[in-house]
């Protein structure tokens, strides 16, 4: 495959001499295998010498039996690997090469031969050759194929975690260093370099040796054809710990010291500061990631290095003195400077993914151990992609349908319409809304911002200048996201992929069919995506109560409640069911699930949770809904939903599920039905409820789409549980059942494709007032309605409110003054002057769909000047002398907001998986 010399084994004619050194320290777990592998080598070393470092598990006896006393040395406890090698080298005859082995590294029969192949053909300046390391005892996962160090002092292998060996790294190449396990070093270079440095007793010695060799003009090669299986016992702390062993933070100390010792010139100062700041940031990150031991190691390492600058300077001077090749010529041996940041992103992504996988409460080291007993049962091989990756293809199909349905909504200024308001211009808008006590909205308001602003701000911060992406994904991506979370949830109950896919598709279709997407009901959409996650946590909590799961459940319920307060009441039965178990873990979990959301959502949302007139409020405008009981029963919250009847097959199947499931299996189905009935009951109550913003605005019929959709979702779960209990059906029954189950997703998909996802959602207009008024940040009084009929008054500042600002209540005194003034001006009582509008800060009046009589009444008012408008049916007047409305906020609101944000951070961190330092066995 790669360029190979014509005869790599030419050296056999005059084979170079090799002295092998084996260092052991309590390695009885691996030594037998290691010694066994040595015995099968095709080409053996010329000489052997073993060193036992204070083993107490019988390793010394085994070595004596294998090598004899004359080829065995003993080193005291605390002797580092380098020192042990020096001890052995002193005993060995002078050979061409020295081969180093660990007591946990097993060779293949041709490992040494392959190393010599490379050593004798790669060039005379090759001083060190190392093998490809694979996982102990003989697995295909790669560990190292050469190694380097990043700018943040981390050992970099260039491999993905768990990367299998498929020959992708089998090209011999120059590297900065190779592991000391299996390292083949030219004797003269070893002597010239002085062997391993005493500055690195256990870790980093190989990197230091390779780096010194490179700076001295030597080359270090990796020979992938030579394979060695390494248990990495020391690095993974798998050895029994004994007196004299290095401290846990030694590895990090070594890497910091290594990087600083080899930094020269200007790079030295840069590295000094970068590692200092980076270590502190890493410490903070480790604390947030619930890895306090590693955080402590980081700080101790920092202390040991930075508080001993003379050692660093000495080491730097020594290495600089031996340098013959400048760093610039060695850049190819180091990774990209962006690598540490990519690693950091990967870490954040993994941490976030772990948050969304509530079953992974514990991770250890590089390979996570999850509590989810279900393997990812995707076979590697199969006859077709559909059979191998059905869910992947299903998700792609859902994305395609949503993409076609959203064809009119994918481009344009801001997504808005229905209940949906546009996003702010930057993510800073949401931060300010949450943290500030005063708001430049309308006539100026003072009040706490809603918690949903905090959540949106956090999610939008990475896309600071384009927060509209967040709302677009929330609304347009809600259907595929709901499918993903629902699929994850139903995996708890069945291994049958077909059932899972049907259930997930049905739920996703229910989200679209409810009308929530078309009307931009952000609260319902967020809750629809979050509900399966919360339900999954609750199910796991039921079978294995942990307080962290109670916190996780509380956090997810809080997320939903922040956007739709009624979600709290829908989730309350979950908590009550937990409390019924009556044992302490369940009571604690139930208490957390109830109390934590009320704490996290803050007073603003909490008031809405408990106020009957406001509990039906959702994020966005209070768009009236006009649903009947039949609509609700069929999963629709308004006329904007899918045609009636698509959900009917689900109802039928759910009833059949109750009847068909065997009695012993019926309990789970009944539980699902009970949850469905709770949702339906809440929906029916909602039919007789109204949303009252408390500002005097007309009450609007409550939107019941959320409980209606959860009612359908719970019925889908009931159907799935019954299908799982009944088992595979005869073909004659399977076909009609599947067809019935497909009515909802396929019918909804067809409706979406034909009807589109818009109406009233749209992207064709970006401000509620004419653009020139928005551009000059005017405070515009907007009047809608007729002189003889109902009239609505609104004050729009600039381009109008963004999502979240609709929650702010206007200052009652100013609002009353405005209403009184407008009333008097419109009625012609003479009790008010136009200047009073200006005193309130209004500098423009806008009638979007101007009633002629009202417009003429306004025409008659002095000091109102007619101005141009954007639509022939609308009218604009401007007035002079407006006093900009002020928004004085109380400082304590900011304090409360910060405390609330910290509470969220603490709660989220508590739900993150706990990371322990790698396994350590203490004697």
């Amino acid at each position, binding site marked *: 495959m790669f360029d190979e010399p014509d005869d790599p084994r030419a050296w056999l004619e005059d084979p170079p001499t090799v002295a092998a050194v084996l260092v052991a320290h309590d390695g009885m777990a691996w030594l037998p295998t290691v010694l066994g592998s040595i015995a099968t080598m095709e080409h053996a070393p010329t000489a052997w010498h073993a060193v036992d470092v204070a083993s107490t598990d019988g390793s010394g006896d085994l070595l004596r039996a294998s090598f004899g006393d004359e080829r065995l040395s003993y080193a005291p406890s605390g002797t580092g690997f380098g020192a042990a090698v020096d001890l052995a080298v002193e005993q060995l005859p002078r050979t061409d090469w020295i081969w180093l082995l660990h007591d946990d590294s097993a060779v293949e029969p041709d490992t040494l031969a392959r190393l010599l192949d490379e050593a004798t053909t790669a060039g005379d300046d090759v001083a060190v050759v190392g093998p490809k390391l694979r996982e102990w005892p003989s697995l295909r996962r790669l560990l190292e194929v050469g190694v380097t160090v990043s700018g943040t002092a981390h050992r970099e292998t260039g491999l993905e975690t768990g990367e299998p060996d498929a020959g992708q790294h089998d090209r011999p190449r120059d590297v900065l260093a190779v592991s000391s396990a299996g390292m083949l070093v030219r004797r003269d270079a070893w002597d010239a370099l002085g062997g391993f440095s005493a500055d690195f007793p256990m870790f980093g010695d190989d990197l230091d040796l390779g780096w010194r060799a490179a700076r001295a003009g030597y080359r270090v090669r990796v020979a992938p054809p030579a394979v060695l299986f390494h248990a990495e016992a020391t690095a993974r702390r798998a050895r029994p710990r004994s007196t004299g062993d290095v401290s846990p933070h030694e590895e990090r100390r070594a890497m910091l010291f290594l990087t600083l010792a080899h930094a020269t010139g200007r790079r030295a100062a840069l590295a000094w500061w970068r590692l200092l700041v980076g270590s502190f940031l890493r410490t903070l990150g480790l604390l947030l990631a619930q890895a306090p031991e590693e955080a402590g190691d980081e700080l101790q390492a920092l202390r040991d290095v930075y508080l001993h600058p003379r050692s660093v300077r000495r080491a730097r001077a020594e290495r600089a003195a031996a340098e013959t090749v400048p760093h610039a010529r060695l850049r190819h041996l180091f990774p990209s400077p962006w690598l540490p940041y990519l690693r950091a992103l990967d870490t954040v992504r993994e941490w976030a993914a772990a948050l969304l996988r509530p079953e992974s409460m514990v991770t250890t080291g590089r390979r996570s151990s999850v509590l989810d007993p279900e393997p990812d049962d995707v076979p590697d091989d199969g006859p077709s992609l559909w059979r191998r990756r059905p869910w992947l293809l299903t998700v792609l199909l859902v994305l395609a349908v949503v993409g076609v349905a959203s064809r009119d909504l994918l481009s344009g200024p801001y997504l808005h319409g229905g209940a949906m308001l546009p996003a702010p211009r930057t993510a800073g808008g949401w931060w300010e809304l949450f943290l500030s006590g005063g708001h430049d909205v309308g006539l100026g308001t003072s009040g706490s911002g809603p918690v949903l602003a905090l959540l949106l701000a956090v999610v939008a911060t990475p896309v600071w200048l384009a927060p509209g992406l967040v709302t677009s994904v929330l609304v347009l991506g809600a259907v595929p996201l709901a499918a993903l979370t629902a699929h994850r949830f139903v995996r708890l109950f069945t291994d049958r992929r077909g059932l899972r896919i049907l259930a997930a598709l049905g739920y996703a279709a229910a989200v679209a069919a409810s009308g929530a997407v078309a009307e931009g009901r952000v609260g319902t959409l967020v809750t629809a995506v979050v509900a399966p996650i919360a339900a999954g946590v609750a199910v796991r909590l039921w079978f294995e109560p942990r307080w962290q799961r109670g916190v996780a459940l509380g956090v997810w319920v809080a997320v939903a409640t922040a956007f739709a307060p009624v979600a709290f009441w829908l989730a309350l039965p979950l908590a009550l069911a937990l409390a019924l178990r009556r044992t302490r873990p369940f009571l604690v979990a139930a208490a957390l699930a109830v109390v934590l959301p009320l704490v996290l959502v803050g007073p603003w949302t909490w008031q809405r949770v408990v106020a009957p007139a406001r509990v039906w409020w959702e994020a966005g405008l209070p768009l009236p809904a006009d649903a009947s*009981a039949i609509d609700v029963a069929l999963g629709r919250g308004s006329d904007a939903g899918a045609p009636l009847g698509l959900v009917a097959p689900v109802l039928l199947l759910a009833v059949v599920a109750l009847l068909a499931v065997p009695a012993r299996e019926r309990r789970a189905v009944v539980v699902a039905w009970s949850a469905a009935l709770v949702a339906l*009951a809440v929906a029916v109550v909602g039919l007789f409820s109204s949303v009252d913003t408390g500002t005097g605005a007309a009450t609007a019929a409550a939107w019941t789409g959320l409980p209606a959709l959860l009612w359908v979702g719970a019925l889908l779960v009931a159907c799935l549980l019954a299908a799982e209990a009944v088992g595979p059906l005869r073909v004659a029954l399977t076909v009609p059942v599947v067809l019935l189950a497909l009515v909802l997703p396929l019918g909804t998909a067809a409706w979406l494709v034909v009807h589109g996802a818009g109406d009233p959602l749209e992207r064709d207009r970006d401000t509620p007032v004419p653009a020139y008024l928005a551009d000059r940040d005017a405070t515009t009084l907007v009047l809608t309605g007729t002189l003889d009929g109902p009239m609505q008054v609104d004050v729009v500042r600039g381009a109008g409110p963004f999502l979240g600002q609709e929650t702010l209540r206007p200052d009652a005194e100013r609002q009353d003054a405005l209403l009184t003034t407008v009333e008097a001006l419109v009625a012609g009582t003479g009790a008010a002057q136009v200047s009073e509008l200006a005193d309130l800060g209004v500098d423009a009046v806008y009638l979007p769909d101007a009633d002629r009589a009202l417009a003429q009444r306004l025409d008659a008012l002095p000091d109102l000047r007619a101005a141009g408008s954007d639509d022939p049916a609308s009218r604009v007047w401007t007035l002079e002398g407006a006093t900009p409305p002020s928004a004085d906020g109380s400082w304590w609101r900011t304090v409360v907001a910060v405390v609330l944000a910290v509470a969220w951070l603490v709660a989220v961190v508590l739900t993150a998986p706990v990371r322990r330092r790698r396994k350590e066995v203490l004697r």
Partner: protein
Amino acid sequence: MTGRLRALLWPLVAAALVAAGVLLPEPDRTSSDGDDTLTVEARTLACAGGTRVAAGALAVHDGARREATVLPAGEPVEALSGATTWAEGTVSGPVSVRTTDERGAGAVAFTRSDEDGLELAACPWAAAASAPYLVGGGAAGDHQSTLQLTGTSGGSSVVDLRLWGAQGPVEGVGTTGIALEPGEARSVRLTDLAAGESELAVQVVVRSGQVAASLRDRAAEPASGREVVTPVATARRVQVVTGVVPGDRRLVLLNPTGTSTPVTIEALGPDGTFAPTGLEDLQARAGAVTAVPLPASLGDDVVSLRVRADVPLVATVRSAANGDVADAAPAPALDGPAVAPLAIGSWQRADLVLSAPGRAASVRLVARDAAGREVGTAAVEVAAGATAVTDLRRVGDGAAWVEVRPDGELHAAVAYRSGSGASTLTLAAAPVDVPAPDLRPAR
């Protein structure tokens, strides 16, 4: 089987919930407003075209005041200013009368001119009607009318004029974009807009600002005389023209719509309602002014006419009386107390004409002096569908004005006669309060 039956309990509960949702009545989400009316705390009336002006109010509360200024100069008219229920004075030109009273004064003002006939008119509130109709004018021969426009807003005002003649809409000259400066009173002869039209109706469409409009008419039919044409706010399908005094009478109809319509005329006389003969086939042509003499079958009493049509019309009746003409105009029924002026010059007659087109109604008359003190009262009953006439001068001695308090649906006008002529003044409720707009925050 028992288990399966028990399992059906859940779907049954679901069905019961849905049934409850279907059967239970939906809540009433409409909210009732608190106050239905708003007090008129200030009102500005524009008086133009007369030599005498009287300013009145139903009541004068603490803090109330009245200011009269000459337009456009702004000089105060002391005789009309103050805090009394009645004041009268002589003026040399247009006058603005602004009354302020936090508890609602019910402010009114009237102008009178005795030049070649009696012209008496109520000073209009400019914002009352943004496109009033003035029907009964002319621009041909002896029938000449002058449109008087007064800009009463603080800034410039702009109006458009729409004209209709006997043959249809009339494209006038310079009828669009007429600009008026604040306080400017402009007289526009209709002959300058559309000469040759014996009957011309005008609509003053206020595009911006505030403009008070009136029409001084020098009539030729049915007799020569002078009158001030009362602006009519809106065209209606059914209207009551009150105070048609006896004499040669001429009905003038404006149909501003595009559809011709038959018109039904009923007379409300002292004995009840009757249909005068000779008007059975009356048609109001689309977009035109129709003027017909009223038959003698109307009788010699003061009557009111109820005019019905299929489309909104504006109807006025011009009567020849006392060597002059008096125009009776339509107005809505009184929905509150009205002010009938007496102390604005002298009168030979001041007859209050009351018509109850529906059920029987009554009215209480309270005569007051200039200080607002009661000097006499009277009560008048009006039979259903009938018209009653009462001499206001006999309600109380020394009365400056008479408060007319209706009880029931009543249309009112006052027919005046003085030595120089006759005039009919349509009464409207003095503006104490107005319906409150149904105003709510949008969110």
